């Protein structure tokens, strides 16, 4: 009997406590930058798209919801001709972000992606690309890679020596 009264009392007292829930959507909770929400494609510090269409995100994806088609510009730079994410399948695991060697694909704290029509959950490259570097400022894959692309010749990447002269006999 006593315990029942005690329970009722405790429940009553909760009415006067500070509320834990917030009145979403008027009030939004703080989500840390590393929260795994909507996926974006970022750009490198020079403003060019970071994605090199290596397909590692799509192969890491456990639900196979990323499709990338590689293309190459006239300077030899790889880029995605198609970059499609089917968010109606995405489980926001973040494996794609982990797999990405260029920090192009990043998960953001935005989770408000409800749609009435499932077809609208299919995002193409233009829907995914943002104009900033996201969480990784400073990194530019093609500055590190050995391939010559537009604006960067052989030997001009970070930590690269000038190209070898095969005709020299000097040590």
């Amino acid at each position: 009997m006593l315990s029942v009264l005690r329970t009722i009392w405790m429940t009553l007292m909760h009415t006067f406590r500070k509320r834990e829930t917030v009145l979403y959507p008027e009030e939004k909770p703080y989500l840390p930058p590393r929260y795994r929400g909507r996926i974006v494609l970022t750009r490198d510090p020079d403003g060019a798209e970071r994605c090199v269409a290596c397909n590692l995100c799509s192969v890491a994806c456990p639900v196979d919801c990323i499709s990338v088609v590689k293309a190459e510009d006239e300077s030899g730079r790889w880029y995605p001709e198609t970059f499609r994410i089917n968010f109606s399948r995405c489980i926001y695991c973040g494996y794609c972000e982990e797999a990405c060697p260029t920090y192009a694909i990043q998960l953001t704290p935005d989770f408000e992606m409800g749609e009435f029509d499932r077809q609208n959950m299919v995002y193409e490259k233009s829907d995914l690309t943002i104009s900033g570097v996201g969480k990784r400022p400073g990194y530019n894959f093609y500055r590190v890679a050995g391939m010559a692309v537009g604006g960067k010749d052989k030997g001009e990447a970070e930590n690269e020596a000038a190209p070898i002269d095969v005709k020299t006999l000097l040590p």
Partner: protein
Amino acid sequence: MATIKIDGKQFEVDPTDNLLKVALSKGFDLPYFCWHPELHSVGACRQCAVKQYKNEDDTQGQIVMACMTPASDGGCFSIEDKEASDFRAQVIEWLMINHPHDCPVCEEGGECHLQDMTLMTGHTRRRYRGPKRTHRNQELGPFINHEMNRCIACYRCVRYYRDYADGDDLRVLGSHSNVYFGREADGAFNSEFSGNLVEVCPTGVFTDKTLGAHYNRKWDMQNAPGICTHCSLGCNTSPGSRQGILKRIQNRYHGEINHYFLCDRGRFGAGFVNREDRPRQPLVRADNGVLEPQDMDVMLASLKSVLAEAKGLVGIGSPRASLEDNFALRHLVGADNFHNGMSGPESHASLAALALLQEHAGRLPTLRDVESCDAVFVLGEDVTQFAPRLALSLRQAVRNEHHVLAEAANIPKWHARAVRDEGQHFYSPLFMAVPAATRLDDVATELFHLRPARIAELGFAVAAILDDAAPMPANIDEQTRTHAETIANALKTAKKPLVVAGTSLGSEAVLTAAGNVMRALESVHDDAGLFVTLNEANSLGMAMMSDRDVDHAFEAITSRRADTLIVMQNDLYERAQHGKVDAAIKAAKNLIVLDHSMTATIAKADYVLPAGSFAEADGTLVNNEGRAQRFFQVFIPEAPLQEGWRWCADLNRAIGKPVDWYGMDDLIDAIEAACPQFAGIKTAAPSTSFRKAGMRFPRSPHRYSGRTALYANVDVRERRPEVDVDSALAYSMEGYHGSDQPPALMAYAWAPGWDSNQAAITRFQDEVGGHLKGGDPGTRLLKVDANVPDYAPAEPKLVEGWQAIPRYHIFGSESQSAKAPAIQQRMPRAWFTLNEAGAKALGLAAADTLRLTIDGEIHALPVTIDPSLPDKTIGVPVGAHGLMGVRLPAAVSP
């Protein structure tokens, strides 16, 4: 047999093998770079280090290189030993010092031996922070891309290109740590086998440029077991596709045919499948004379009335189409109205080749066996241009002398450098009686540049010298006799002599002569072999199916016995003089063409049905040794494009002819029932209902990605997985994958830890470089006939005046690959060739135009001088780059 111990486990091994090969054969994961099953050991990369112990009590041991250590009896080794594995990790760290940070943008990524090996040794973090060495790349033509930064200097490329394929324009340039693997200047590789560099290179220095143009990773490919359709040898390939686009052709190991290597025509010649100008809808000729797309049902309805009203049907099959497609057409038109689709001379030569093969069915070496023959006599065939992969095998055959010398000097066969040094310039005899210089001349012992009839004469003479019972040609001159004696002696003293002949010259006499040589050899030799090459992928199959050629078909049409011509995957303008074809087409009331590529015949057709190419159909091809091999559909094309035989089945049903083939199994049963000569093609591959552990066999690797996004832009709901009603393969990554899957159903090679094609296959072989587990696929149809016929009379029918002979080219002479963009860039210019005396006699200088009348049709081409040609002989380029439909050899009067 020797007994050795590896990591405490005991194994029975062949003591003449090296430890690396043995360890890989026994399933150990031991990293390596410079070693290759066909290139053997040089011990350069130091990657396959293991511990060797003196005996079982020895705990100290010493580090040795497995590839340079014989697996001799009582050997005691450890792969897992800490010191050895630390050593291997250190070696790979050195190799990786200058390796660029390129994997995401490298075409090799995902099937890279270097990636596999770094992972296998545990080197997953780079410690080196200093500057990396860089190189400039070269432009290597339409086939191969060069990215020299990625090189780890394992020397595999030059060892393959120079030592195995005898190429001379890939070199190691520069010195010490600056070595550079490339050509002296930009440009395409000279060798016809350069494409193998893509697979031989353990990393991404040499990659497939045709794949790079529409790239995807190995794990995203949908593959199928394929058979190359670009010559008669039937090399096994693994075509890869994605989203209905054929991406590339990769080698598929076959222990008796191509093993690790393909030719460039086979590897880069499949681009025709992706051409925009292919017919993909049924087309009907409208009143204004233009071919217009037609709905499938309407088309079948109108064809129904066309066939019903036809006065008679004439079917022309094709030696480049499968048995199934041809048989389905044969069923539609009736066996008596079916033609094998070859030109008259081609058909006669193919039938002669078939007869020859049947007579010697017990002595037909496989392409792999050719490599162990130690004396070769080639009659008439320019193998590099006509059956390219054979040239690579013959190059190995002449090196048998190296192995003989090495064995005498007690050098193990796998010790590549020592064998080579011991062999030096001593080669096994290779005699070539050919019309002109070939790309194989550099390894030939002696060359005889003769006209077809003289080649036959030489052959008859060799036979007569080998066996007195064989007839000697009349009035043979002294020089021919001397040459014949040289050849006969070499063949007689060899352990395993080989005779190579074929249909390229269109001369039955040459084949008859080869038959006489073979019969004479059999009388003195137990181990003689005969290798016959034919024009196209299914030439032998068509010779077995029908002996009627296109001339019979044209005759039936022009004599008004029939008025409707149905052509299956054939361009008639390749088969006969253009005037004759025009006349036949004009005489025919209706011309119905089923084909996968745009041809001159389609341009004249009244009805066109889009048939599937090798990538869009299943089928059986009979190669030059009579081996029936099945190829499988790589991807399902967009309707209404379908298999040629399915169109024929539809037409059969439309005209009320009963057919009960709904899948490949039914059709193959029907073929075996109707054509007993094809009994056994059913066993070329397991049937549609075959399962392992209740499962089908996957076309794609298990990591196949993007399934729920690939077509999400069209419809977010996933498509129903496609069901294969024609084979036991699945259009999926799901199914049974393992080393015990049937080799005929192995769409791709992959094993845990081994992603690269040439290394992963190791897990599917009975021993490294041997046969596939479960037996190499294919069924040999030719049965040994006890009746040994008599020698043919030696009547070579010598021609006196001017003669035009065919000259082939690897890029151009085969019509399907000639439509591939990459091949088109390598096609040569068309020239009439003749020797200096001939040019002088005709008053021509190089580059002058020669007008030549062949079979009543005038052809004009510029002239070039080829001093190797015999007198009064004009070489005519045949194929897409030259002339089509000319019948050679022919007497001409320039």
